[in-house]
């Protein structure tokens, strides 16, 4: 989209166009380079890893690191833990988020913008600042080392995002449709279920992906509240590919790639939908 508008505005000016592409290429390189480097690290041998000077292209590609991590039951367990934590967070966020967002988008009540700001304010808190009090509370509740210790703070920080995106989605849906459904004989619940939900599905889906990515990538809370490998997600497990004497960088890189892959695939498949979801409300369709 940026490319399209930039090329449109710079039509007729060769210099501008050239500058645009220079910046584009630099930007992409800067963003992508670390990821490519990690990928490279994951497919080379240990000796090549420590070669000096470092190789740019992998000399002898190998899947050894991948074999290592998939052979490691701890990594498999961590993947499952991540899925459980991110999945549960997403489901909880969507359930409460869609109900709250629907109410905010549809009902008339006072101080609506204040409510919206308060919701957003929650995500203003730097997680680091609340980590100590949370730890004490969680210990009191006895949920340290359980999935809940990661899910609860994840939900707290993801829910504002979920609500904000969904509100803009629900606002886009014409009110007439619900009214038409009600006149057609539907109850409020039926109108919501048979008309609103199917129409909002793309929006809900986008929100789900974004929430899932957020929870999947979360590290700080999980690292602080989960000590037991039985509950740790992959983000926490990756640094553990180290022994007292050596760090298995190759395995860490392979694990990082494996963890990122599902997200990249999700986003690539649904990128059009995600962009339109984020900009819903900005432009009249």
């Amino acid at each position, binding site marked *: 989209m940026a490319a399209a508008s930039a090329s449109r505005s710079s039509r007729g000016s060769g210099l501008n166009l050239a500058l645009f592409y220079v910046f584009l290429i630099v930007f992409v390189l800067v963003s992508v380079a670390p990821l490519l480097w990690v990928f490279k690290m994951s497919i080379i041998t240990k000796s090549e890893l420590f070669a000096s000077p470092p190789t740019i292209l992998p000399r002898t590609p190998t899947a050894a690191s991948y074999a290592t991590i998939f052979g490691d039951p701890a990594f498999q367990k961590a993947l499952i833990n991540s899925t459980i934590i991110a999945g549960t967070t997403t489901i909880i966020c969507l359930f409460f988020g869609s109900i709250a967002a629907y109410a905010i988008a549809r009902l008339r009540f006072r101080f609506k913008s204040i409510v919206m700001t308060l919701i957003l304010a929650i995500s203003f808190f730097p997680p680091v600042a609340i980590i100590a009090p949370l730890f004490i509370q969680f210990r009191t509740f006895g949920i340290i080392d359980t999935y809940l210790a990661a899910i609860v703070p994840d939900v707290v920080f993801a829910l504002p995002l979920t609500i904000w995106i969904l509100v803009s989605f629900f606002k886009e849906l014409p009110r007439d449709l619900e*009214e038409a459904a009600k006149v057609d004989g539907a109850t409020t619940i039926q109108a919501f279920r048979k008309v609103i939900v199917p129409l909002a599905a793309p929006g809900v889906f986008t929100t789900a992906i974004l929430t899932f990515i957020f929870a999947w990538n979360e590290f700080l809370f999980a690292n602080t509240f989960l000590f037991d490998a039985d509950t740790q997600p992959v983000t926490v497990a990756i640094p553990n590919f180290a022994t007292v004497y050596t760090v298995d960088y190759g395995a860490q890189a392979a694990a990082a790639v494996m963890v990122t892959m599902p997200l990249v695939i999700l986003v690539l498949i649904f990128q059009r939908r995600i962009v339109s979801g984020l900009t819903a409300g900005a432009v009249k369709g």
Partner: protein
Amino acid sequence: MAEVTLEDVSKIYGEDVVAVRDMNLDIKDGEFIVFVGPSGCGKSTALRMIAGLEDISSGKVFIGDNVVNDLPPRDRDIAMVFQNYALYPHMNVRENMGFALKLKKMDKAEIERRVDEAARILSIERFLDRKPKALSGGQRQRVALGRAIVREPKAFLMDEPLSNLDAKLRVQMRTEIGKLHNRIGVTTIYVTHDQTEAMTMADRIVVLKDGVVQQVDTPQVMYENPKNVFVAGFIGSPAMNFMRARLEKENGGYAATFGRTRIPLDRSAVGERGMDLGRYAGEEVVLGIRPEHIEDATLAEGAAIGSTNAPNTIEVEPQVIESMGSEKYLYFGIPQEQSVHLDSVAHMTGDSGVDGGGSADDFDEMLVARVSAESQARRGDRMLLALDASKIKLFDPETEQAIL
């Protein structure tokens, strides 16, 4: 099919924002009623209260013999057509039309039969399997109508259903809705801001302004005998002209005078209202005359009228002449002391209709005459216009109510 009755119905938002005030109306079974008025007059709110989409602040709404105030829309057995069609985008035409019947858990075969029947009436059989987004505006509007028809409801409620269509299609759909109503004869309440739609479709028109019903009458009565300045100016296109005049007694009858013009009022029109008119003798009144009742004096019927010293003529200097082919519109100013500035007239600017309404905007202060195409009138040339004395309307300048 049923009667719809409104008894002292009001809608008040918050503390004191009145959208509809004490509305009373008896809609007969099978009648086609049009609510018309400028934007913000409460016509849509009134309709939505009947539909159940808006709470009723006070008063009662009856559909048939039942008070429906507290019934949700689904229990009122009414069908509604919305301005933007409100078709369910994720269902095809057939599902859209059958949605209400499906909710009623009606037999599949019966749903099929009714949808096919409605599709045939509206000639949309070809589109039954399409999604709404694959249809044109006119086709979508037909589907919206179809969704209403299949219900076989007690009443149809239509909220500006044609205003999203282009001018030509609007005229065509207007006729179709009329035909449809003749065919199925369901009580219909139709909301529009377009007086032309109201005039052409309605059995009776309800004119609203600021939430208050101004007049309820058949189109013809409304046109011939508007109850006040607002209705007079709102109904008819181009809008009625208003000017200041004085009412004077004249050998047993009355005459309205302004400038050098003296119009003897038609005795039969004055009739039994002569007594009331007496109160205004010697007083200032607002005179109203429709553009179509003003003619180029040289073409006006009757030799006496055509002569320069005939009493019912005015001398004007046309500023703009619009030739419509079949007739000509002359726009002309009148002296400051004769022009009228009424709130209710200013209110209507731009809402007076599709044709001519737009151009009339630019000539706020001007009057319009609709003269024969043969008129030789030229811009800037002084000329005489003859006013049809039998069509003159008089209004009280204070209350704005009609006195003749």
